[in-house]
């Protein structure tokens, strides 16, 4: 995954460079973790298919980019980037809404376990149908961002790194504002707070839930585009690993809490970047991440920013 750049001669530069890499990767994890946490916040349901929605979003970005680059118009790269992003965000939002409508809504009043199993099934379905259509061979993402390097004080930046971090931060701030400052956000928080009462206040619950899925999926698609640019080899099972990591991020931060998801994303990015520096090989990263999850769940099950929930008797 992210190469450990050893250009910096001293320890500080190495550390700073890796913090930068962790920020880049953490931004992508945070964007996907937001989708898990939004759905959990509103429906108390773990949408295990979200990693695969991210995968579909990445492929749709690729399709959009390849289509726009193939046109004989010689479009500037900025237009291609924005076009691919719009295309994939819209279609992935549509996918998220359809999944909710077809698979999750009939189970809204069913036991929670049924919904979780359904989500696992939907995820496997998306993986295998993509595998069936595209075959197992990986596809390459075209370069949309110029591959120059900037050096500042011994640190190496690429425009792509800056773009990823800035865009992810922008999307997160927008989402935070949406949830805290708008009527839609208020409706979301109200549904999370007390679902039986909210419809009596005239809140269209189904619409709000659909919109939640649309927003979560669109953000995952944006994360997919950024991920595709940074790690340009796509295969249909990529959503499994990234999805689980983002899920851990959401739980570590406190599932249901939007700021927690962002924090968790950066923690997981750091785990991935720093594991090969501490342990002999990067293959230990899954072990480290899941052990972190296990230990956290045993001692603080609600995550870093989550509030404890008490069961009423």
């Amino acid at each position: 995954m992210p190469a450990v750049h050893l250009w910096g001669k001293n320890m500080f530069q190495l550390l700073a460079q890796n913090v930068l890499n962790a920020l880049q990767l953490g931004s992508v994890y945070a964007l996907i973790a937001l989708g898990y946490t939004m759905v959990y916040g509103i429906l108390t349901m773990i949408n295990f298919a979200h990693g695969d929605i991210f995968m579909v979003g990445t492929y749709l970005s690729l399709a959009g980019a390849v289509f726009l680059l193939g046109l004989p118009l010689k479009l500037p790269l900025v237009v291609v980037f924005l076009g691919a992003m719009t295309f994939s965000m819209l279609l992935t939002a549509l996918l998220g809404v359809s999944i909710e409508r077809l698979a999750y809504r009939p189970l809204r009043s069913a036991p929670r376990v049924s919904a979780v199993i359904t989500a696992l099934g939907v995820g496997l379905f998306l993986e295998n149908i993509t595998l069936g259509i595209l075959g197992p061979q990986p596809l390459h993402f075209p370069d949309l961002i110029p591959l120059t390097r900037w050096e500042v004080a011994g640190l190496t930046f690429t425009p792509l790194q800056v773009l990823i971090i800035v865009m992810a931060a922008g999307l997160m701030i927008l989402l935070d504002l949406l949830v805290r400052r708008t009527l839609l956000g208020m409706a979301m928080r109200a549904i999370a707070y007390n679902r039986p009462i909210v419809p009596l206040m005239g809140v269209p619950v189904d619409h709000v839930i659909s919109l939640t899925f649309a927003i979560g999926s669109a953000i995952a698609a944006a994360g997919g585009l950024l991920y595709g640019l940074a790690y340009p080899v796509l295969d249909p099972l990529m959503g499994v690993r990234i999805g689980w990591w983002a899920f851990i991020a959401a739980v570590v931060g406190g599932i249901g809490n939007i700021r927690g998801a962002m924090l968790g994303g950066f923690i997981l990015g750091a785990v991935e970047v720093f594991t090969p520096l501490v342990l002999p090989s990067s293959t230990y990263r899954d072990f480290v991440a899941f052990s972190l999850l296990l230990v956290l769940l045993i001692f603080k099950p609600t995550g870093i920013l989550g509030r404890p929930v008490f069961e009423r008797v």
Partner: protein
Amino acid sequence: MLRQKGFLIWSGAALILALAWGLPASGALNPYVIQILMYVGINMILTLSLNLVNGYMGEFSVGHAGFMGIGAYVASVLTVAVLPPAWAAPAFPAVLVCGGAAAALAGLLVAYPSFRTRGDYLAIVTLAFNMIVKSVLENISWLGGPRGYLGMPRLTTLFWVAAWVILTLLVLRNLVYSNFGRGITAIREDEVAANLTSVDTRRLKLYAFLISAFFAGVAGGLYAHLLQFINPRSFSILKSTDMLVMVYLGGVGSLTGSLLGATIFTVLLELLRPLGIWRWVVGPLMLVLLMIYRPQGVMGFKEARLFKPKLPTPGGGSPGPPAPAASPLRGQ
């Protein structure tokens, strides 16, 4: 009445064992069919063991492939590296028990967190357990790492599979219709209330996870000595999902359902083999449709009469896990 049923069960078991011994030897079945039958049997053990936790106790384990993997690797190392080749065949049952015991030991890792967390969070714990097992196996180089481990003799025969299915079935049946069974059913229905009525929930949860993990480990050992090759990817979350499909297809809280679910799923996937990669679309789709239209499965909370003990009880009611009144599984 009780005598008759006992006789029926034991003679049925003896007949199945005799058939499992005789049919492959006689050459009446082709090896392909025997292979499928063995897969069905292994899946039955897995489904029964998972049903104890997910169906009867109402907890939600999504990491059972982890137990299976531990059992498979421990049993394989015993036959390949530890035991002299001549001993491997006669010691096979003991090897399987060792694999199961190792898996049960790992079950502690899931059982202890289950005292504090439940529901979604426990599901995440089991999932993390599955991932950790896979990751550890991938990083142990003398176990082949991600390339896998091979060299096991093909010790799994239809007879051994049948014997373990019968043993699992008998043990679980006796457990489920005992005080233990009523205790874990009480945990499923309402843990707080169970605790208040002096059910030792911690001890029961511990036992349930240990027993469930043990049989999953045994199934892993059988699987390893049938395929003669295992790698960490065979015990990923995908395998766990397969087990969930079998449990929920057959029916939660039902031994008959587990047998049925394992049979239907295994045979169906075999029949769909000509579809190639597309057959893996069918399983998940089936799972989703099942959850929407019949979440309790084919035999949810029902049992074939053969498996139900009819004990003389005051009042004449039949003992055993009662069908829940409102919610089939612990809901919101």
